[in-house]
């Protein structure tokens, strides 16, 4: 069913991923690849395996079979904590921030993989450690400006509204300065205005920082607006792949969505 992908060098390639939880099959032989500088969206009905696929990429889950190739590394065999250092960052569907810390500290914490100084020098905070901190703060301030969260710099994250927390989390992922950004439902639970803001941020990140983005999202309208390519999963199997326009008219996709989100699917077809 899938449209043959255009010839290009993939930055990240997932091959034949199989993931079972006991007797439950989450992923049954899924393959996809992301070209450098591409926004790829992973869509599908609830339980299709979108988040599972994402979790395999950043090492949260270990697929029983299959490979994920990135920069000559197989991520399936890379320890989870090494994966951010390779250049892969993510946000979570259910925000995972340090709720007792300020937005600024949350972002600064993400810089740890770039910190050169040892703990003692950092604790004493002199010379190189001091300079390094200033350098990191500069990077963070750029991100704060980019995401327009100046006003909550010093606010405790736990006290922030949901939409802003999502933004802080995106900021933390950016602070890692990744090559690939994994976004798990960045717009879930947001109102229309917040969604539009987030869509703008994602486009700006891509445009300004040339970042490769793998996006899992439910909101079909927005996915179709911002993704270059879409991979559709259903029951752990890839049922379609192609440009948003191709996906909108793909009968298999419409069938997968019919009955479940009939209105949305027909809406996106009309678009």
């Amino acid at each position, binding site marked *: 069913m899938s449209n043959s992908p255009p010839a290009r060098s993939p930055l990240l390639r997932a091959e034949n991923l199989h993931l079972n939880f006991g007797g439950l099959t989450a992923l049954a032989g899924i393959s996809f690849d992301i070209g450098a500088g591409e926004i790829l969206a992973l869509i599908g009905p609830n339980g299709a395996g979108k988040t599972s696929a994402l979790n395999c990429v950043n090492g949260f889950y270990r697929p029983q079979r299959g490979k994920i190739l990135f920069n000559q590394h197989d991520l399936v065999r890379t320890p989870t904590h090494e994966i951010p250092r390779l250049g892969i960052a993510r946000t979570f569907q259910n925000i995972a921030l340090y709720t007792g810390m300020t937005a600024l500290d949350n972002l600064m914490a993400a810089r740890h993989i770039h910190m050169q100084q040892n703990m003692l020098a950092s604790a004493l905070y002199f010379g190189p450690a001091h300079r390094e901190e200033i350098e990191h*703060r*500069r990077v963070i*301030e*750029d991100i*704060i*400006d*980019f995401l*327009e969260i*100046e*006003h909550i*710099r010093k606010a405790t994250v736990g006290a922030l509204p949901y939409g802003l927390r999502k933004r802080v989390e995106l900021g933390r992922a950016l602070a890692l300065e990744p090559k690939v950004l994994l976004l798990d439902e960045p717009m879930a639970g947001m109102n229309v205005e917040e969604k539009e803001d987030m869509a*703008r941020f994602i*486009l*700006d990140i891509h*445009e*300004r920082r040339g970042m490769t983005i793998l996006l899992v999202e439910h909101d079909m309208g927005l996915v179709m607006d911002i993704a270059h390519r879409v991979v559709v999963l259903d029951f752990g199997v890839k049922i379609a792949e192609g440009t948003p326009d191709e996906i909108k008219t793909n009968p298999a996709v419409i069938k997968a969505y019919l009955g479940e989100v009939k209105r949305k699917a027909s809406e996106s077809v009309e678009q």
Partner: protein
Amino acid sequence: MSNPQTLPQYLQQSAHKYGNTRVAMRKKQLGIWREFSWMESYMRVRHLALGLQQLGLQHGDKVCIIGDNDPQYFWAQLAAQSCGGIAVGIFTDSAPNEIQYVVQHSDAVIVFAKDQEQCDKMLSIRAHVPAIRRVIYWEDRGLWNYRDNWLMSFESLIKEGREIDLREPTKYDERVAQGNADDLAIFCYTSGTTGAPKGAMLAHKNLISGAVTSTSVDPRFDTDEYLSFLPPAWITENVLGLAIHVMNGMIINFPEEPETVQDNIREISPHALLFSSRLWESLVSMVQARIADTSWVNRALYNAFMPIGYRVADLRFGKGNVPIVWKFLNWLGEVAIFAALRDKLGLSRMKSAYSSGAALSPDVVRFFRAIGVSIRNLFGSTEGIIHTLHVGNDVKFETVGVPPPGVELKISPDGEILVKSPMVFQGYYKNPETTAKALEGGWFHTGDAGYLRDDGHLIYLDRVKDLLELATGDKFSPQYIEGRLKFSQYVKDVMVVGGHERAFVTAVINIDFANVGRWAEKKRIAYTTFVDLSQKTEVYDLIKQDVLRVNETLPPPARVKSFVLLHKEFDPDEGDLTRTRKLRRNVMEDRYRDLIEAMYSGKDEVRVSAQVKYRDGRAGVIETAVRVCGV
């Protein structure tokens, strides 16, 4: 250059005076306050102006600017004015059709639009504004991939100008020297309550005399800090901000984002500030909310010293003499809590705190006086800039101050405030009829009603069209009297009654059950229900004090001669009020007809039986006697 006549000429003078060493502007960017010296700021204006000239900007051409408070906004404005152009500010939250109206009506040829959001709005109305040659943006975020020659970046225009400046080093100076005090400087579009917005035309001499007037009674120095956060499309920011900046060298700071203003005020701790009365009020509620959440030590200090602060402030602004014991206690309070509060609010260095808009409640004024900040009122308009303000320590919160030197003020026979001053505007753009009406007889007709007291202070009442007339022909403002009465903590709602067929003013007052109840308990006055409490003689005496106090501020014919305390509360469920608690006068005059007639017929008491609807839909009848109290 001897005597500058325009804002760009003043900028040039100040830039040569302060050069590269003194700070002209600061903008918080990426978490750091970045400074622009006078020379840097001036050179940007200079290059920008040459760039605009290159785009064909001529004397009298209009340039629209849509943006937040940024150095670029003021640079763009001064650059346009350097070429003899007129700056037209547009609010950033305007919808595309509103922008289109102003751009078309003002005949603008160039638009400065801050960012992607504003540029997108311009692009959406492009077909309707063919006169616009270029749209110049100063924040390129999101615009990187726009390929459109209509859009142009601020920096590229400056770059063009810089090259011209190298080739023709005297071109800018010659152009600026041609500027004349009579040249138009800005258009301020005012959203009239009826009809389309009108473009008030203000000349350089208007803005300059605005700055001169305000600094003549309240000096500003080149070491003073100012935070620019009022919309720059407003006259206020142009006069109290930009004009004083270029003329007196006051440093202008720009907030990081509109959302961070409160934090930025604290960081800058400005010397001068103008808030709307709403903002001052919200500061007080913020402090009170924070105090409720703070540690018990802070709360105890606050509760111990605030009464002292209130007492001292009342003494100081009342009789003038503060006994030494109170001075000492106040000093302790200063150390313990007042200084810290001022610091938290960013008022540590405040010399000139102004309030404009609706009247400030006395509680708010007293609060700030207690912590050592005296708020002065300022009353003005787009067309006349400053009409009156409080000068020095002559601060009376019930007035809007006195006309400053250079401002002549009189009240027309029908109660309208008329103003004559060098600040009065040049007319509405392309609207000679309205202009003629506004400037009839050489006076600017403010459309506001008020009266001058014997001490020279102006009392502002209301818009003229909202006044009511009595049978005697005297006019009064129900909203004004109601607002003043509601400042009392014992009064929850009021309806003031008058009109053509009535000879004097009366009021139907709704007591604040919680506060009056607490007061009654303290005074050991026993009561059972709202009905009972509202008809107590003592309560009538209590409220009468408030009515008398308000009456003192009113001209005799507009004073409340009689009032009743209603036996029940005004209730939206019964149609007395709208859901936003605005009075429905017609409904209420009808419902309380008996009570109102009783006040005018001189009865002492009236029996009422009122229909009440309970929340659960049942209807009931209350029967009681309501007393009428003459004042």
